[in-house]
């Protein structure tokens, strides 16, 4: 749910990175953080366990520039991917403007990807959102790993609707900004329509 402030001339939007455990959601944010100018980003917050697994969420505020004199700010969040953190995942989806689904390309994670997409759809529905109507982008991460399955298979399983999708190697930055730009663009188009 965006927040438009006419007084400070700002548009604030919320983007959530979703996906199975260890698929690279936090890595996406870390790469964006590392490669963004200091004046365009705020502090990155990670609420993680001692073993650096996301416990509640990661948060990164980002300024993308101006549209017609309005500063556009995007708040990027990740959810904890592990199955048993479902209650926390639901909370983070509140007020979401756009979703990035980060899929793990490895063969052994095929089921985890499918389960996570279903979980996303269900949790969004509980908040009154329809995944098919929300700005939505898919990223196939870990394309560099030997056990990565062909892109066509991932697409068939995860992207029947043909939303914008990208291949990625998040630690190296491949596909990271392409994904972010695609979802941010969709969010702004939705905002223009009047949501």
């Amino acid at each position: 749910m965006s927040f438009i402030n006419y007084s400070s001339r700002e548009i604030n939007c919320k983007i959530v990175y979703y996906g199975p455990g260890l698929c690279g959601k936090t890595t996406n944010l870390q790469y964006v953080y590392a490669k963004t100018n200091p004046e365009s980003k705020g502090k990155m917050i990670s609420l993680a366990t001692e073993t650096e697994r996301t416990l509640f969420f990661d948060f990164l505020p980002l300024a993308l520039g101006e549209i017609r004199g309005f500063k556009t700010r995007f708040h990027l969040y990740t959810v904890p991917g592990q199955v048993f953190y479902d209650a926390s995942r639901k909370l983070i989806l509140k007020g979401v403007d756009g979703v990035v689904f980060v899929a793990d390309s490895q063969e052994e994670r095929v089921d985890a990807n499918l389960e996570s997409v279903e979980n996303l759809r269900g949790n969004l529905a509980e908040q009154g959102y329809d995944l098919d109507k929300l700005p939505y982008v898919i990223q196939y991460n870990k394309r560099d790993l030997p056990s990565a399955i062909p892109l066509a298979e991932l697409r068939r399983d995860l992207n029947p609707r043909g939303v914008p999708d990208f291949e990625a190697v998040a630690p190296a930055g491949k596909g990271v900004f392409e994904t972010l730009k695609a979802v941010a663009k969709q969010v702004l188009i939705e905002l223009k329509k009047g949501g």
Partner: protein
Amino acid sequence: MNSGLVMYDEEFRAVTGVCEHLCRDANANVVFLVDKNGQLITSSGRAKGELDTTSLASLTAGNVAAMGGLAKLIGEKEFPTQFHEGERESLHMSIVAGRVVLVVVFDARSSLGLVRLRVKKASEEIGRVLEVVAKRQASTGGQSPFAEITDEDIDNLFSE
């Protein structure tokens, strides 16, 4: 998609004014107003420049959401107020009109009783402004204030 919160100059000044009064009347260090999704609406007191208000806003919303989840698990609707006592500074959070969170940071120069009393009055005032915002948004039929943005404007934002 749910329609977002749109605030015009007059409404923004009204809620900022309430926060400034509250900060003074409650002898608080910082007062800030956050929407439940973690967007900072306004702040007053030491918040200006010194504190990372963006992070504060996001963590406040996370905390309120987590406590709301806990409340539901034990059969409560929500916990409308929370108080966290620190060694030097303490934090009082209250949900206003079911939509925003009013946060007051204070130290020994104030007291929980005084903060509670002032927050109650401020909450009513903020609630009234939010009612005006909701009515206006309903009467405009959710029409986008950004309808005039062109696809080209959006493309320009992403061209490097």
